[in-house]
């Protein structure tokens, strides 16, 4: 296989970014154009949101639990074991809740979108849809973007709550801490800025998951092998973008709110 020249690779990269931006922009613009596929949005919300609930609950619970377990021993060295609740709730709500939930949803749904749309691409079903007078960006992509953003927001809230509960379970039943003290410090340490930071992130992450999944699906070439490639790339790229965007949003929010 010949090595691509630097300019060819750069052109390919720029072209991919342009196509991604066009797909995302057109899909979002379709939100304000008729017909509005409400039923498709609800179907996708069920698949993406309700379908992801078990993994989000399990991930959130055990993350909160292990956070309490790992930090309590360090905090106790400074006589600050009572701060476990504060540490768990701040970590879950500001960072781990949004990021881990997004990574789980990305693994489950960005791959699902890429493989579903990719299979439709290689079997000409997308072309058939266009030939039947229906815009696939409107019918297939827009509902996935709206449903992912909407449901990821609520999944993050569930994950935050379950994570805090997981931390409480470990603190109380394994570390012998006082439950009311755990919840008191967890609640008292939270400010509006923390909540806003934790709830702004899933909106961006949901957009990334859906648009990346759909982009790789809609640009699939090369049969079943191409579908596999698109699926893998969708998960890898969306995961990396989530973590990178998390850093940017965190820095931006700290700049605004000072914490």
């Amino acid at each position, binding site marked *: 296989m010949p090595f691509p020249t630097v300019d060819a690779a750069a052109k390919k990269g720029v072209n991919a970014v342009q196509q991604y931006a066009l797909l995302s922009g057109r899909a979002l613009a379709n939100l304000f154009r008729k017909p509005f596929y409400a039923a498709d949005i609800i179907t996708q919300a069920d698949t993406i949101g309700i379908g992801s609930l078990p993994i989000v609950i399990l991930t959130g619970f055990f993350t909160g639990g292990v956070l309490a377990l790992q930090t309590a021993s360090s905090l106790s060295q400074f006589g600050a074991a009572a701060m476990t609740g504060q540490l768990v709730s701040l970590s879950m709500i500001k960072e781990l809740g949004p990021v881990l939930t997004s990574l789980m949803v990305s693994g489950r749904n960005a791959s699902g979108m890429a493989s579903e749309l990719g299979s439709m691409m290689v*079997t*000409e079903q997308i072309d058939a849809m266009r*030939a039947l007078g229906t815009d696939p960006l409107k019918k297939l992509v827009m509902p996935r973007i709206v449903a992912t953003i909407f449901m990821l927001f609520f999944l993050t809230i569930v994950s935050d709550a379950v994570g805090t509960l997981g931390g409480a379970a470990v603190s109380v039943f394994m570390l012998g801490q006082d439950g009311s003290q755990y919840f008191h410090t967890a609640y008292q340490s939270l400010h509006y800025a923390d909540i806003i930071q934790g709830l702004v992130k899933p909106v961006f992450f949901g957009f990334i998951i859906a648009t990346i999944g759909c982009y790789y699906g809609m640009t699939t070439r090369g049969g079943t092998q191409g579908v596999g490639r698109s699926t893998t790339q969708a998960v890898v790229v969306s995961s990396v973008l989530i973590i990178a965007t998390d850093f940017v949003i965190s820095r931006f929010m700290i700049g605004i709110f000072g914490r």
Partner: protein
Amino acid sequence: MNSATQTLDTRVPANPDEPVVVFENVSIAFDQKQVLKNISFKVKPGETRILLGPAGVGKSVLLKLTNGLLKPDEGRIFVFGEEVSAMREEDLFKLRGSIGTVFQEGALFDSLTVRDNVGFRLEEEHVPGDEIDQRVTEALRFVELEHTLTKFPSELSGGMRRRVAIARAIVTNPNLLLYDSPTGGLDPITSTTIIELVVKQRDVYKTSSLLVTHRLQDAFTLASHRFNRETNKMEPLPGDHTDLKTSFLVLFDKKLVFDGSTHDLVHSDDPFIKEYIS
């Protein structure tokens, strides 16, 4: 089917005086590889044009150019008098409401039942459910598959899937039908069944069509047969007659090397065509 399918908003009535499809010096390349060069031809109302050529010559590309799924690099394409090569995608969706397309492998939506596949466009047009059922059943009756309403494409044979694809293409009574290798990969008996449906659509509904194939026997069956409404079967035209509304286009090496009647094709002196049809 006619009575129920006259009132789609998206239909563009064919003007009897102007060609349904016009290609003017159309060229297209992929990754700097020229696929079609300076292609020009017309499809008149009620006419069936059979596009022949070796595999990989760009026949399917030409069909996708016709309904605007691809844009040419050069040249102009008109369908129903509108320049599809210059139209925005949003406007093309409306125009495609009057074009029926049968894809190479059927391209049925595998997660939808036969009923939902055939009625897809009607659902998008918000036609009432009862009317959709009626029109889907009629379209499926045309292809003799009305018993498959609740089945999924994966439960059908290859030939049945093509017939469902034809039903999906004709359910809105389009003014132009594009068939992309409708018999490709099928056994001879099933191929004849599909060609019979194409002949039936041509002779009963007089729909203009562009049919891509590399199977000569199917092309000549189309040109030399007619549909008998009394027996509901396809039959050979008497003597050596061929259907005057059916003519041929031959693509070879990026170019259109033949555009003419069945008689002209059979008696062509072009060495490639002679070899191709021998």
